[in-house]
């Protein structure tokens, strides 16, 4: 069998038997890679900033600082109680309604779909992560905090050395869950014209008048991302929770 025969046979399989036309998709690897890059950039960037935002907010929530606590609660309630899609639409389509936004420096940021998606992802993931961290901070054993106080640690040192490490450790499984949900949430970016994985799939479908082939590829790529996150966190938990696991001889 010659090479030409082989390609013809592969093409035949690709067009009739395979659930999606992989020969055609192979020609557009760069499109899907661009989508993958954008999705990962959006996910990693927003998660880093959201986690940084969540640490002080969670501390405020856990300490029940009078007025601030109510403000943070209002923030998390608002962002956790409404769909991310509506938040993104409100910022991306809504901001243009106001003349003062259009005339100010804000407009250079808010007219870009990328920044709108980024800002909404940070705020939305930040709200969820705040509540995860709050639960973890509240679960720090009282005895450890009392011991630290008895040693004469200042509030700041106590928070840095006792509360945070302990809370991070116990928050890890719930945090991993949040990361996976954030990965799912990034698809919203494709609704405001960003070429993320789903956006790439849509471009692919539109170009060849396909009904769903691109979506299968997208599903596969997302599964890969989620699998990588799961494995990564399992490794991380293995490191941080080593003292909790049973000793194997």
């Amino acid at each position, binding site marked *: 069998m010659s090479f030409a025969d082989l390609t013809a046979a592969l093409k035949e399989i690709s067009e009739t038997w395979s659930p999606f036309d992989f020969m055609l998709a192979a020609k557009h690897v760069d499109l899907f890679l661009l989508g993958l890059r954008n999705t990962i950039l959006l996910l990693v960037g927003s998660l880093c900033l959201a986690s940084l935002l969540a640490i002080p907010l969670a501390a405020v929530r856990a300490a029940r600082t009078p007025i601030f606590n109510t403000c943070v609660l209002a923030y998390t*309630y*608002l962002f956790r*109680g*409404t*769909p*991310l*899609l*509506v*938040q993104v*639409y*409100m910022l991306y*389509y*809504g*901001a*243009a*309604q*106001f003349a003062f936004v259009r005339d100010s420096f804000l407009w250079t940021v808010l007219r870009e779909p990328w920044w709108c998606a980024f800002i909404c992802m940070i705020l939305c993931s930040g709200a969820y992560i705040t509540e995860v961290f709050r639960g973890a901070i509240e679960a720090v054993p009282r005895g450890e905090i009392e011991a630290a106080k008895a040693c004469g640690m200042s509030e700041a040192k106590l928070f840095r050395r006792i509360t945070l490490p302990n809370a991070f450790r116990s928050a890890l499984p719930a945090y991993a869950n949040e990361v*996976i949900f954030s*990965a*799912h*949430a*990034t*698809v*919203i970016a*494709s*609704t405001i014209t960003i070429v993320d994985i*789903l956006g790439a*799939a849509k471009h692919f479908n539109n170009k060849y008048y396909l*009904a*769903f082939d691109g*979506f*299968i590829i*997208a*599903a596969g790529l*997302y*599964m890969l991302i*989620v*699998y990588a996150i799961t494995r990564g966190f399992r490794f991380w938990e293995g490191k941080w929770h080593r003292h909790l696991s049973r000793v194997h001889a």
Partner: protein
Amino acid sequence: MEAVLQFSPFLLAGLKVTIALSLVSIMVAVLLGLLGAWAKLSGSRRTRRIAELYTTLVRGVPDLVLMLLLYFGGQMALNRIGNATGLWDYVELDAFTAGFLAIGFIFGSYMTETFRGAFLAIPRGQIEAGIAIGMSGFVLFQRIIWPQLVRYALPSFTNIWLSLMKTTALVSVMGLEDLVYNGYAAGKTTHQPFTFMFVVLIAYLVMTAVSDVGLRWLDRRYSAHLQRA
């Protein structure tokens, strides 16, 4: 503000679609969840495998992708099967049906975990006692398992319901005229997208708050015997 009042019947029609879609989806999800939990707990290795594949798939693929896949791919698959077997003619999956099937499918997998955990939380002795008295499978389910399943599953059911309602917003991307779709359309017509999206946002917030309060009340009722007098 005047524009919102003017468009309020339009928005209310969308709200109705959103609520109907949520209710139908949660029913599908509960059914799939019970089925999945049964499959995961059953002795047969094959059913367990299938249930595990189901939950892994849903955890791996974002909701919107699954929805689009089902909307466009499901219709083609249905018609191919119909063609091959001759059982049905050309069918068209409308956005509402595809929406509730997809959302039910997605949240059914979360329900599976919920019901599995709740079932495992029921003390074994009670089920054994029921069997010893001679209860049939159905009576055992109705009198012993279901009431306790509800109690153990309610907190996580509440969370699932709240995120399910928010997920229904995604059907607007498939063109179903729900609250978000109508709000967006009204905003575009009146050149006040912010105002209308804000109204939609508040509507979702109210829906979440009401369900939160209602389900917490239900939770208190089902665990009334555990509270101190």
